[in-house]
């Protein structure tokens, strides 16, 4: 395996974190969180990749044919399900918070603002 997937994963994670740190809108922030999450997909698929191997479906291949690692693919699938749940929950909370306060700016929404002195 080359170093490229590792670099792409690190870059995606850093880009997502930068987006979250500088975000002024919760919907945008949730998008940035998804960018962070996609870095884990790249990392996991990169870990399991084998050059010249087939997909891990042995229906039309004889057993023993080199295949990419199916375990990490199962992990990625689980991760996608989990990610969808968290994104849905976050967006639902963002909708509710917008209903209540009329804003989606993290700076306006900060709980327990401590601005004295």
């Amino acid at each position, binding site marked *: 395996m080359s170093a490229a997937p590792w670099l792409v994963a690190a870059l995606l*994670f850093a880009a997502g974190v930068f987006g979250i740190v500088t975000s002024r809108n919760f919907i945008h922030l949730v998008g940035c969180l998804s960018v962070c999450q996609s870095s884990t997909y790249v*990392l996991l698929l990169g870990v399991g990749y084998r050059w010249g191997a087939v997909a891990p479906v042995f229906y039309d291949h004889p057993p023993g044919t080199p295949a990419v690692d199916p375990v990490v693919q199962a992990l990625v699938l*689980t991760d996608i399900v989990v990610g969808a*749940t968290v994104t849905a929950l976050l967006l639902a*909370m963002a909708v509710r918070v917008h209903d209540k306060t009329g804003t989606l700016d993290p700076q306006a929404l*900060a*709980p327990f603002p401590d601005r004295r002195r």
Partner: protein
Amino acid sequence: MTPVASLAPLTVAGPLAVAAAMLALAHALPRYVPDVIAILTALGVAAICAVLARHALEHGALVYWFGGWRPLGGVVLGIGFGVDPASAAIASFIGLLFAASLVFAWGYFDEVHAHFHVLMLLFLAAMVGFCLTRDLFDLFVWFEVMSVAAFALTAYQLEAPSLAGALNFTVTNSLASFMMLGGVGLVYARAGVLDFQAHGQAVARAGHDPVIAGAFCLLAAALMIKGATAPFHFWLSDAHAVAPSPVSVIFSGAMVASALFVLAKLGLQVFAGSADARALMRGLFVGLGAVSAVAGGLMAWRQRHLKRMLAFSTIAHLGVMLMGLASLTATGVAGLVVYFVGHGLVKGALFMLAGVLLATGQSIDELRLRGRGRGQWATGLAMALAGILLGGAPWGVLDTGTDLVHAAAGGLARPWIAAAIVLGAGLTGAAVLRACGRIFLGLGPQAGEEAHSPTDEETERADRPLWLMLAPCLLLLALALLPAEAARGLVARAVAMLADPSAIPARVPALGRTSAALGWASTALSLSIAAFALWRERLPRLLTGVADRATRPLFGVLKTPHSGLVGDYVAWIGVGLAAFSIALALR
């Protein structure tokens, strides 16, 4: 497989099945039936885990392979639960705390569809699975289920402050789960398996390997975000302060500490062979624990919002637990396990008392509640006792845990560890005692630094019977006062089996006691600071003025990063990760 081992999956499948059935039948169930079912389920989980712990202590750790996928010829394909005595005892304690919290929450929510109970049972199953699993990816899944249930419970009231706190909680902890998955991926890249034991062997073979070191950094950072230790702790004070009080009981009493317990388990079982991981734990993590203890104690002292005060005190005590586990010695990890239980009992009781005040006094603000608790002597005495225990008085379970952590710190020969523990515990105890004196005795008309801290208007349902809210709280405090000295031998044995689940230790010497002097020192500290705050109007103006002016810049520096901005919190996570890499590079 022994018949006892087949009980292991029931601890997770049981609450999940009950939750699913309850969700399906919620519209048909009479009002208090979901409460009864949920309490009985939590007690059942606690009982099964206690049976498992006892069996494992006598006959060795149990392993349950789901679907019968046992390892064959050294190849591990299955997913297993590893039931060692320490993990099962922690899981049993979690079940007990859930039962107490559900009794406390009796009639708390005006709702017909039992969503609260379903979420609580899901949360319980996830936490038990998190403690018992011996598979890294399974660990990630339970971590995530636990997080999602916790996010939903934090935002349960759907008011603006609870939603804002829940958003910060969700964003930081989701980032933690991605880092955890990244760490799992990196370890898998080297070891090719996901089982703890097989991992441990692969890590030991790999020796000095940057991929393993990177994986450890990511996993440790993820667990320290969940375990809320500096500089990853910022979400906690927002989330625990806005969550409904029965939920905060679980958050502070069990959820955050369980992440540190799992970090100890990974340190002992998976990364024991990695010199990088050991160096990072014994070096940087001890320092981070000390920073959490002192900063958490100071921030707790500065609060007037009671739940926020308790949240910061949890951060301080998590710092003590981190110092215990970071030593990676049998004494230190035993300290973590005992401290987990002792702190969970006291902090659970304190959050219940905050809930009682929310219901009877209709406020959560210490200054507004002043004198409103007069006549509620049972509540007041319970809060004073909890404050004294939190402040490190040498009685009961929490003290035994503190003593073990002190003993482990003695092995590291860094005297500032003991100072950080005494200061952190003393300050949190002082904060609770100050609030107690103000609310129940009407003392302290003149507010100090706490007058400048943020507060919030919040109330909880007032028509619940007081005895029903106090009973679980008093039970937890009574358990916290039980002498844990006799358990030292059992804990030593359990920790030996946590480090090596395949062995049955013959005779493990009980872990020795240092002295009660440090406990008395921190009690004296908390009593004197609390007395200073409560009677400050009688002290010479010069003295209070000098004290205020001396501490003001310190509090100013400390409060700045606790901004409530999720972007800041994520930036601090980046700082923490950078500190990990620098510490590794300098090694």
